[in-house]
């Protein structure tokens, strides 16, 4: 398995303002399994970037420690609530640091801090065995996984059309304590992979572009394959700028993780 990822802020924002996160966890026994996650912090939230980062770290750790997390919506919901517990500790440190630095929480920040940050999240696990490779994915929100084979799109998950995206997706809030509610919004999928297959984990703006392009008969996986293989962030950023300017992609943070089976 070969992985690569790219992350670019929305046009007009600095890299530090990017509120997407991605994490890939290599196995200790390299080559037998791999966990990957992307998360997309909501623009309207405060500290959406750190929350997205914490979500990807927590869920990939959970996926590493328990291979049932992506099969069982209740276990995935429990992992999300685990991230919420970690958030409370992180937030206490953040508030203390702000006060120690002479910049206490302002009146306009407090309502959003009290409400907690929101993010979409998607996590996947790939296991290679002697005879087959399995993949499993769980998501809450509109970050997507695409599975391609033989130059065609085999599976899009959890959204299957460009029209399905809007600006009010399902989101995980750091203070969500209702496991059943979270579980109701979690979607899972699984399948088999073959040599040559490609998987792309994308946050929403890129995912919507991908599906739109596929619906027009294009092969958007070639574009992502080229940029992720080269790892050329400048070229990817330039392409995003053009694509956004042409109205083919919403101006938003963009993250892609590419998992290839050679």
């Amino acid at each position: 398995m070969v992985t690569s990822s790219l992350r670019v802020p929305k046009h007009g924002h600095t890299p530090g303002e990017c509120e997407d996160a991605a994490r890939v966890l290599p196995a200790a026994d390299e080559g037998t399994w791999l966990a990957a996650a992307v998360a997309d912090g909501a623009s309207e939230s405060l500290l959406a970037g750190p929350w997205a980062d914490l979500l990807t770290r927590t869920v990939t750790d959970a996926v590493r420690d328990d291979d049932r997390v992506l099969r069982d919506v209740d276990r995935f919901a429990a992992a999300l609530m685990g991230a919420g517990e970690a958030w409370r500790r992180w937030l206490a440190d953040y508030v203390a640091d702000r006060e120690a630095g002479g910049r206490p929480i302002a009146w306009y920040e407090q309502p959003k801090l009290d409400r907690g940050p929101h993010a979409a999240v998607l996590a996947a696990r790939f296991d290679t065995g002697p005879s087959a490779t399995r993949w499993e994915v769980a998501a809450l929100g509109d970050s997507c996984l695409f599975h391609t084979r033989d130059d065609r799109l085999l599976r899009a998950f959890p959204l299957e059309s460009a029209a399905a995206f809007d600006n009010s997706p399902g989101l995980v809030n750091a203070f969500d304590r209702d496991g059943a509610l979270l579980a109701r919004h979690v979607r899972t999928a699984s399948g088999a992979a073959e040599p040559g297959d490609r998987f792309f984990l994308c946050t929403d703006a890129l995912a919507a572009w991908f599906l739109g392009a596929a619906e027009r008969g294009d092969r958007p996986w070639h574009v992502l394959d080229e940029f992720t293989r080269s790892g050329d962030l400048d070229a990817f950023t330039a392409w995003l700028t053009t694509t956004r300017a042409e109205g083919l992609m919403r101006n938003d943070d963009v993250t892609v993780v590419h998992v290839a089976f050679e």
Partner: protein
Amino acid sequence: MTYTAEISRANPSCFVFLVDQSASMENPIGGGRQRKSDVVADAINRLLAELSVKCAKEEGVRDYFHVAVIGYGHGVGSAFTGPLAGRELVPLSQVAEKPARVEKRVKEVPDGAGGLVETTTRFPVWVDPVAHGATPMCRALSLAESLVSDWVVRHPDGFPPIVLNLTDGESTDGDPAGAAWAVQTHVTADGAALLFNLHVSATDAVPVTFPDTDTALPDAYARTLFGMSSPLPPHMRFYAMQQGVAAGDLTRGFVYNADITSLVQFLDIGTRATDLR
């Protein structure tokens, strides 16, 4: 005319609030004891606070909007008090950083066990209640038009300016319909400037929120303000419907003796922080 332009620091929009500060605002609102001047000052302060919170990020409030608050009564001009006194369009970050004062207010919140518990919140104040003089609404609308006109020249592709007039409707310098129409003739590539109205009335009539007809409105002042108000653009209708308003193609940005703070929730600045249901 799509009202879909991105609102960002590079492509900001603007809000012009017009606040009726005439002597008639001293009278109580219909069905209540609060003075109309208190109601509109409270509404403005809550709108500015909501807008600041909406655009707040950890490094501060982002300048997605520039804001003017124009009072009209004894005179026509900036209604800001405190550090922003005398200023017209102000970047939202400065509005957030420079209220006249931040009061502590007590409010009741759910205690998680079916009851309520008192808590204190910080309530910033930029505008104080004023009730003095006549109601030169036409002059106020003309000043708004001048700010809007200048803004669209400098931001020809941006989300159009929004003018929100808070008044008891009793203009003393003529029929405001013409001046209201003039505001809405200024356009960007994304649409015409929007004019919305909050009517606070002494008449004890049923509150009305974002109606699509003037038939339920109790008097000529209300019907005039309804007629002056822009239709809600499609995305605002969508969010109004999410909040339980039966919004259709003819729904206008007009509220009678009711809360208009929800207007801030009709603005798009990116992915919404929506809780699961």
